[in-house]
């Protein structure tokens, strides 16, 4: 193995471990074995520290601009549903739920928009821009079920799950930085420029939102957050169960949208069932059903 490959492999190993301490130990071994110079070891360690901080250091206002660009990019593929009444209702429900989330305050606030697509899909963009398709709304037969959908998306925003996608997807980019550092000992400005690249970041996030999906752990976390928010506001969290049941009936494993990016509704139900124990069966509400139908029946 050439020294350069060794430097890259070492960098990859320590980045994979995601720990600057591991990096320091590993590079120390590399130096003592004569595989890399102390200068190269320092470069790798600097890169690792930079990457560890990559997403946790993003401020709410930076997150806001990332989210705007992600939403605008998604809207190039998924057209908005231009229905003022339906979108107003979606925002009254969604923004009310967001008030009770673990992160009620984002730089620009939470805003919701319907997408004119039959696909079952939703996108929680960093900072609180939430896009929901007609196809996903069709999985909801009540306001309580729709509340569960929106609370789940709010859970993704509150947990900064979109920003975590940057960290995961940027390991490849980080590897390039490490290689460049190892090869040329570029200055810190070069690292900063690379890690601040908005376009790359948007690519990371949209790739995760549209194609790869989050891990089952993050989906479970969003469902758990949804149950908590629904309970705090006063909606029966069994609305989530109702929505997942209807989604399961429409589920085709080879289908688009959620069917590619989310665990099956059956798996999500299994994951969330324990936290729903103790809640009474979902009861229909005449007044909520009336406004739900008035806002969304025509879409």
């Amino acid at each position, binding site marked *: 193995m050439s020294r350069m490959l060794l430097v890259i492999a070492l960098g990859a190993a320590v980045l994979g471990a995601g720990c600057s301490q591991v990096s320091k130990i590993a590079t120390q071994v590399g130096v003592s074995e004569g595989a890399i110079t102390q200068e190269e070891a320092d470069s790798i360690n600097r890169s690792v520290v930079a990457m560890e901080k990559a997403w946790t250091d993003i401020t709410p206002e930076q997150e806001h601009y990332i989210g*705007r660009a992600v939403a605008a990019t998604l*809207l190039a593929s998924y057209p*908005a549903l231009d229905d003022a009444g339906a979108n107003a209702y979606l925002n009254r429900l969604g923004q009310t739920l967001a008030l009770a989330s673990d992160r009620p*305050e984002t730089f*620009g606030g939470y805003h919701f928009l319907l997408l004119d697509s039959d696909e079952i899909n939703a996108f929680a963009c960093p900072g609180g821009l939430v896009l929901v398709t007609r196809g996903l709304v069709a999985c909801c037969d009540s306001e309580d079920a729709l509340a569960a959908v929106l609370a789940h998306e709010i859970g993704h925003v509150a947990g900064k799950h979109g920003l975590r996608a940057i960290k995961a997807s940027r390991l490849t980019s980080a590897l390039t930085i490490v290689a460049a550092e190892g090869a040329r000992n570029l200055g810190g400005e070069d690292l900063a420029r690379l890690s601040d690249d*908005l376009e790359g970041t948007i690519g990371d996030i949209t790739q995760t939102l549209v194609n790869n999906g989050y891990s089952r752990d993050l989906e479970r976390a969003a469902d758990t957050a949804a149950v908590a928010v629904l309970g705090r506001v006063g909606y029966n969290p069994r609305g989530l169960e109702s929505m997942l049941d209807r989604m399961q009936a429409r589920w085709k494993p080879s289908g688009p949208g959620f069917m590619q990016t989310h665990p099956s509704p059956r798996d999500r139900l299994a994951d969330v069932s324990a936290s729903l124990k103790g809640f009474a069966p979902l009861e229909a509400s005449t007044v909520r059903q009336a406004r739900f139908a008035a806002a969304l029946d025509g879409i």
Partner: protein
Amino acid sequence: MSRRTLGALVALLLLCLTALAAQQFSVQVRETRLRQTPSYLGATTASVTYGTRVTVLETRGPWRRVQATDGRTGWLHESALTERQLTLAAGDRDVATGADTDEIALAGKGFSPEVEREFKKQNRDVDFAWVDRMATWNVTPDEALAFLAEGKVTPPGGQP
């Protein structure tokens, strides 16, 4: 330990706690409202904007009772606050007066209105019109409570 020593220790502890409680924070969201009680159901009083320096007087769960530099007090959720000191660049318009202009200088490096402008130049097929329209759809806390009341949704612990 004598009562006097114990008393001195308690006094010292209280002093330390007071010092901690007096920590300075900045409002890190574009605009939010002070609440009368530490709850999302709490009635709102005045609004505070990005960069406003506040002193934390009391902590209850995720809520902080704060006093702004102009003397106003109220409760804010911790997600609205940062320990960093945020500054607006000279000559830029206040964020509160131009919600859609985004002419605010953002602290630190990274994604900003300037970067967004550059992004738009390089990606002319990406249209921000709907994103800008979404940003104008705001539901006030009062409207949210009215929405719950109308739907007969009752938060645990009482009527909204």
